[in-house]
């Protein structure tokens, strides 16, 4: 028996796009993506752009934090400012982590990302002001947690084990993709929040929502810390 068939990487990218799972895990790289990255050499702007956007849109930990951050932001100016700080933070560590070859433990990083959700939900509840009597700088907090989110993105990209060839362009593409995914996700969240804010009882529901958000954060922390203490 003899076969003479080929498949080129472009076909794989298209296949990966078609197979986009609605809710991929925040921590797994799909087979098609992994084979693509393994077999990729050289610059591949759009595939990495796509992978970055996909990671952000399907990464519920990043999304939960962003929902927390913009929850009480009403002005577009404020939203742009806070999201920019978050972007600045995660871009710095994503680029530094991958290019500098800094290998952070992904469980610890993801546990901190989970904690960032708890922190922001507590902040939104008024926990710092009411309970502890002081308000930590919210802008600084977003920037610092942004740094940890960037390390999280870096560890995911490092799991893909990308070839050195064309690395810089590919990581920048991935980073730009992350921002595109972030804008897409934020738009959806903002539309939902805008509608919700016109309803009566928003503040009471907001309190419950932040409690749920905090639960998600605690759950992520527990899940990741267990993974760290109990390697499969």
């Amino acid at each position: 028996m003899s076969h003479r068939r080929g498949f080129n990487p472009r076909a794989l990218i298209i296949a990966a796009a078609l197979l986009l799972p609605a809710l991929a895990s925040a921590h797994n790289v799909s087979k098609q993506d992994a084979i693509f990255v393994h077999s990729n050499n050289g610059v591949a702007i759009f595939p990495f752009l796509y992978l970055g956007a996909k990671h952000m849109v399907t990464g519920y930990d990043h999304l939960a934090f962003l929902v927390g951050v913009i929850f009480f932001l009403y002005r577009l100016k404020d939203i742009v400012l806070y999201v920019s700080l978050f972007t600045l933070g995660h871009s710095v560590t994503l680029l530094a982590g991958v290019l500098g070859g800094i290998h952070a433990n992904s469980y610890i990083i993801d546990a901190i990302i989970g904690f960032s959700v708890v922190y922001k939900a507590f902040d939104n509840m008024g926990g710092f002001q009411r309970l502890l009597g002081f308000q930590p700088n919210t802008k600084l907090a977003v920037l610092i947690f942004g740094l940890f989110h960037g390390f999280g993105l870096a560890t995911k990209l490092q799991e893909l084990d990308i070839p050195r060839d064309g690395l810089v362009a590919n990581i920048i593409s991935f980073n730009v993709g992350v921002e595109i995914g972030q804008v897409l996700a934020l738009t959806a969240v903002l539309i939902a929040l805008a509608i919700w804010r016109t309803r009566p009882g928003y503040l009471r529901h907001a309190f419950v929502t932040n409690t749920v958000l905090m639960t998600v954060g605690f759950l992520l922390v527990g899940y990741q810390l267990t993974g760290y203490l109990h390697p499969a």
Partner: protein
Amino acid sequence: MTEDEKLIAAEAPSKAAIVRATFIALAVALVILFTAVLPAEYGIDPLRTGKLLHLTGISQSDSGGRATPANAGIYTLQPTTYKVDSEEIGLHPGEGFEIKYHMQKGATMLFAWKADGLLQFELHGEPDVKPKPDYFESYLLDKTGKRESYGSFTAPTTGVHGWFWQNKTKDDVRMHLYVSGFFDTAKMYEAGAPPEELIIKDPE
């Protein structure tokens, strides 16, 4: 502080409400963690809820199978008949190709492949019961390229197991694959096309 933030501060919940909400969040998270997430993700099942809800199987289809691939001993009885397969494949520069064999958990096969040029490859498999739709396990990944590879393989899970090869050289590469053992069926895969069944006869 903006006007909106002042408004929110004025209507902010009481200290007691914040403390209560924080503890509720922590308690609910712990309950979900111990009853569902830990059993499903790590096979840790302190309250036996994972077993009750059939969640522990999710993690066992992954690492549980890998830990005990087969019985150790002088012989291992196999669930299917012995099969032999031989495939010759030509790959142009840049082309890739995949052949996988459906095997029962613990079934073994012997393999040998030899090429007239360097091929990068990944030996990997997909269990029939996957925790996620695009889940796969990588057993051996070679990105520097090899001309040949010989060995035996015992399936850690019931599913399809096999190779992805790619020709990263500038010349055509011909490769011959020989597989014998206890697999059920063989398939080859191309992107964009449904998997194609390879016809394999039992040895006479």
